[in-house]
């Protein structure tokens, strides 16, 4: 459980360019924060910064009042990050891929049943024994999202999670997010198109903001 996640006056610099500056946000349990903005406005950078992969050049990120930079490992083990890359090994089957990540992520034993349930939830039961190599982009994305179901972690960072998902897949994701929020979880997602999640806070990134 995370009680609060607060970004204060965050500035992100990649190389010599400032991607965004003076950004504030705060998330409490049950919140969904949607990050919007044109290509290159720093949506992915903001999510990687919130994960703790990137350090802000200015400002601070606090989880439950503690600076994330002070204990990066504790922060990393409380969140899910689903980015553009699906982190799947083509030679392994869907079950093997998900089992590997579940066992890596959890100190408790994860039963084969809960792996099967997570695959079923994402509509992948029929493909569970197929090498991931044969899956389509959308199916691979579903398998990446199955990590969210298999392992419970309070903070979800989703970078364009609906990319290459079909309508049914997007609907499942919306349901998952709703369940996660009602259980006191937090979601931060960068999206372009629609993600029909109700009651969200929006962070708008983009050039027009940095000019003002």
């Amino acid at each position: 459980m995370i009680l609060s996640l607060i970004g204060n006056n965050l500035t992100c610099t990649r190389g010599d360019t400032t991607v965004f500056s003076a950004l504030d946000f705060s998330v409490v349990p049950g919140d969904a924060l949607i990050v919007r903005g044109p290509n290159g406005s720093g949506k992915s950078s903001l999510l990687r910064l919130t994960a703790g992969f990137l350090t802000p050049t200015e400002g601070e990120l606090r989880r439950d009042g503690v600076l994330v930079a002070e204990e990066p490992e504790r922060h990393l083990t409380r969140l899910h990050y689903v980015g553009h890359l699906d982190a799947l090994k083509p030679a392994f089957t869907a079950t093997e891929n998900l089992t590997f990540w579940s066992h890596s992520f959890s100190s408790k034993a994860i039963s084969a049943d809960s792996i099967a349930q997570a695959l079923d939830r994402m509509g992948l039961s029929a493909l569970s024994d197929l090498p991931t190599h044969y899956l389509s982009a959308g199916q691979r994305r579903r398998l990446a999202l199955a990590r969210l179901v298999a392992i419970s972690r309070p903070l979800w960072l989703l970078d364009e999670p609906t990319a290459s998902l079909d309508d049914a897949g997007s609907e499942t994701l919306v349901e998952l997010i709703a369940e996660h929020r009602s259980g006191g979880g937090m979601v931060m997602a960068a999206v372009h198109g629609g993600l029909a999640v109700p009651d969200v806070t929006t962070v708008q990134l983009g050039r027009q903001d940095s000019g003002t």
Partner: protein
Amino acid sequence: MTPFVQIITRDVRLAFRQGGATMLVVVFFVLTVTLFPLGVGPESAILQRIAPGVIWVAALLAAMLSLDRLFQVDFEDGSLDQLALAPLPLELVAAAKCIAHWLSTGLPLLVISPLLGVLLNLNGEAYGALLMAMAIGTPSLSLVGAIGAALTVGIRRGGVLLSLLVLPLYIPILIFGVGAIDAALVGLGESAHLFVLAAILAAALPLAPWAIAGALRLNLE
């Protein structure tokens, strides 16, 4: 299965299942060594003289061959991000990957090296030293090489840069690896050289995973 063991088994299975790394490394090793009798000529005295060096240099190059993909595959498919989210410290992830790398490349090289010794007419009393030197030396090749692999992980075609970084660091392992076999051949006893190899391994074992984890963290940005 603990996460540490799980990473080892995953990497070893990948190395064998794709028919990739292991097969490639072993075939490269055998081919390179067999080129020498063809190039130098079949005089057994000369081959016997150069055998320890040839086997070790070929083993170094073969180990190099598989290193550039060690972390790059995980970097490119996003697995590195996910490994950073796991409770297992990145240092132990690095150590597990080095062990897996040794099991899937160093160990096969070790097993096949006596056969190549026969091919090069290596003297009977040198095989014990050859096996011992390879057994103690090849884990250091994986550990030291992995530092280079981690530093070049974000660079496209980092393989050449990796060789330039790592090959100079392999020189001590080469010198004492060959030295052990030469010493056994002239009857001086190989233990002094083996102890130095063991010392290198003892230093690399705790230090390399730490350096690798540092390099990998930089590449998460």
